[in-house]
């Protein structure tokens, strides 16, 4: 199976076919970090990271809290 092409925070990336959101979070070294994930405009609850399988062309946003006023 060829890898999937997805977009993460506006950058194109490849990930192995069949990878889940949890897998992506792991690859990006964000496991256990306080993040929130949106996939194709829909929020992915943390409890469902390992259930949701990524698909070709998915657009993901991964956010954190930063200093701001």
């Amino acid at each position: 199976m060829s890898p999937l092409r997805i977009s993460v925070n506006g950058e194109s990336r490849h990930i192995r076919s069949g990878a889940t959101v949890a897998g992506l979070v792991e690859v990006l070294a964000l496991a256990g970090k306080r993040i929130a994930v949106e996939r194709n405009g829909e929020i992915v609850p943390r409890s469902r990271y390992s259930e949701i399988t990524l698909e070709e062309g998915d657009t993901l946003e991964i956010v954190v809290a930063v200093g701001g006023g």
Partner: protein
Amino acid sequence: MIAGRSYRSRLLVGTGKYRDFAQTRDAIVASGAEIVTVAIRRTNIGQDANAPSLLDVLPPSEFTYLPNTAGCYSADEAIRTLRLARELLDGHRLVKLEVLGDSHTLFPNVRETVKAAEILVRDGFDVMVYTSDDPIAARELEAIGCVAIMPLASLIGSGMGILNPWNLRLIIGQAKVPVLVDAGVGTASDAAIAMELGCEGVLMNTAIAAARDPVRMARAMRLGVEAGREAWLAGRMPRKLYEASPSSPTAGLIG
């Protein structure tokens, strides 16, 4: 008292523009603030995974987080940001809504703000809303169900102080929810003036972060807010134009 919870401090502070996390923490502790605003941004992929994050420095167990929508120019962007914030902070409902209308002045786009507030309130958020100092807009946002109205005193980050106390008085006079000055405070006397007008609190960031000594200014702001609050509760003497009144007895003068 905001959204059914009471706080001891009437000073709310932002967490941006500090030199580093240590200074952020020191200034915020010195300010006595219990509510701190945070922004929601894309994570820097590929950065050191062990680098400390804001949440390590200001643990949510010690502070009430107020995620904001700074940098959003439409209702849709603001709603999307706050839904992500809610997921990020485990169902957290208290948020600061701001929808900007112009990147030069950072003036709010009230129409988009109202639109976003309607949806967010329906969606179960407790919305503290940044808006212009327009009493009609303030009334509309309160009617929608916002838990606090936060008019600007002057432009965000300008430090120009309280430019239209009369409008703020009108807004405070009509509101049944807390009114907080958000934006424009430059120094401690500005914070005191806001409180003397009858505000329930003041929200600021740059005035502390951009001071030469942010930790000291944070303390000054805490005292300014407290002094202004006390003065408001004490009830100031009336202003008497051209009517002097000696403080010492006029009888018993020598000679």
